[in-house]
């Protein structure tokens, strides 16, 4: 199976000296739900900007469906990989919600009709139809985040990157966002997201990449990653609460031992003796 994006030995630095990314190699397959974990400054955001084509690697290669991406064809990457920025205020450029969501499709050179069709579809999907004429500064943080996602949905890119999507969101907005991400995953979108919320990453992701000091130091299923105590310590990560509780219950003989670890509270309840 050909990966939708392949990163080979990627190195990148902002000032030409200290490397923000060192020898990063990874294959991302169609429809995967990947969580990228790591402490602040580990290189996650820089990795995303390289994946999207905003930054160009100093050395190494990025391949889109097997085609190497260089300066001349980096627009292909922009048209296939969308990025939802952590701070929606840094992303939103237009003076109304509708104009904001239409910005990407217009830049892609789409017709007015197609742009409007996609814009309304994205607004509907994000439950933002009633906000179409509002100026961005009149929206709440959660609403702005939804506009940021609608921006990328309207571009209809197969790969969507979310840079800390749940950061600064209240609990209800975070739950809503998780549902949206699940829905996008079910629609076949490839989702790559960074988060500090290990509980969310454990629940949501099928695969986890762990960054530390600009390098990938772990790549595996959530069960593999969160069972590796040394890796967790190296990346300054903690175990998801659900796993900690399960391990405690198992040690005290109150839960069944299973090879497949529980991912949700009902699954954990099903393992209680």
């Amino acid at each position, binding site marked *: 199976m050909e990966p939708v994006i392949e990163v080979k030995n990627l190195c990148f630095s902002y000032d030409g000296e200290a490397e923000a990314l060192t020898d990063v190699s990874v294959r991302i397959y169609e429809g995967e739900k990947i969580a990228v974990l790591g402490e602040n400054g580990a290189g996650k955001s820089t990795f995303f900007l390289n994946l999207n084509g905003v930054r160009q690697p100093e050395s190494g290669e990025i391949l889109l469906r097997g085609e190497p991406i260089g300066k001349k064809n980096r627009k292909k990457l*922009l048209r296939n990989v969308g990025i939802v*920025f952590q701070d929606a*205020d*840094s992303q939103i450029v237009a003076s109304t919600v509708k104009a904001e969501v*239409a910005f*990407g499709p*217009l830049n892609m050179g789409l017709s007015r009709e197609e742009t409007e069709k996609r814009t309304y579809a994205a607004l509907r999907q994000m439950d933002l139809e009633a906000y179409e004429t509002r*100026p961005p*500064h009149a929206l709440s943080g959660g609403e702005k985040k939804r506009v940021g996602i609608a921006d990328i949905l309207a571009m209809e890119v197969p790969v969507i990157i979310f840079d800390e999507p749940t950061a600064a969101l209240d609990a209800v907005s975070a739950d809503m966002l998780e549902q949206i991400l699940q829905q996008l995953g079910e629609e076949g979108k490839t989702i790559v997201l960074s988060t500090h919320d290990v509980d969310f990453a454990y629940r949501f992701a099928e695969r986890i990449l762990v960054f530390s000091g600009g390098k990938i130091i772990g790549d595996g299923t959530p069960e593999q990653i969160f069972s590796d105590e040394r890796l967790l310590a190296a990346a300054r990560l903690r175990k998801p609460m659900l796993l900690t509780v399960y391990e405690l219950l198992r040690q005290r003989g109150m839960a069944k031992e299973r090879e497949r670890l529980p991912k949700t509270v009902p699954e954990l309840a099903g393992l209680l003796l």
Partner: protein
Amino acid sequence: MQREHRHVSIDSYAYLSGMRDWNSSYKVLFSAAALIAVLAADRPAVSLGTVFYMLLLTVGKGGVRLRDYIRLLGIPATFILLGGLAVALEFSGEVPGGTLATLRLGGVFVCVTERGLSLAVTLGLKALGAVSAVFMMTLSTPMGELLAVLRRLRIPALMIELMHLIYRYIFLLFDISARQREAAYARLGYRDFKTSLRTFGSTLANLLLLSMKRSELYYDALEARGYDGGCRFWEERKRLTVGQLWYGALYVTMAALLMGGL
């Protein structure tokens, strides 16, 4: 209408206006025509007629509350009044002919002459009429639509893009500045005049640094969505209806009648 909108800023009137669905180019043309009529006619009747017509249109059709409209118009009106006073008053060593009122201050007479008063009223009404015409446009047309009209008028794209980004940035910076002020206030940053000045300076410097940092993020976000040196913004196309034309025709008729001395 959504009167309970949370944000209170000058452009919120435009977003909530009952005239928002009017054709933007027509509104700009209407406003410009009224402005020219007021300046060219040079008659207080036309100026006064324009002030009332624009008030009726903006409040009656646009739905801006009369209290809000008067409050907004009050700011330029204050400057116009002060300017009018400077024109109306004459300082002289002796009382000139045609004086309506005089005040003696030592050896100097402060007089209001018939000619000076007439000029002040004409000028003041002219300025107020012009401001009302512009208010009709700005209180009913969101910035994005105004910029679209400017683009159609062949204003250079770079200027339009800059205006777009500056407009967006103003609200972001206001927001950051308000939060900084609150944070400083909570730590007694405004406890006396001297401290207030120091805090004000620090917050301004910090605002500059934050803006520079944010501009880098902004550029990345623009590039990530295909920005290649030219921003393409969605422009709404609003129909010009007979109803809208009637309001223009009514104004032209009124101005013509007033110009001809009724």
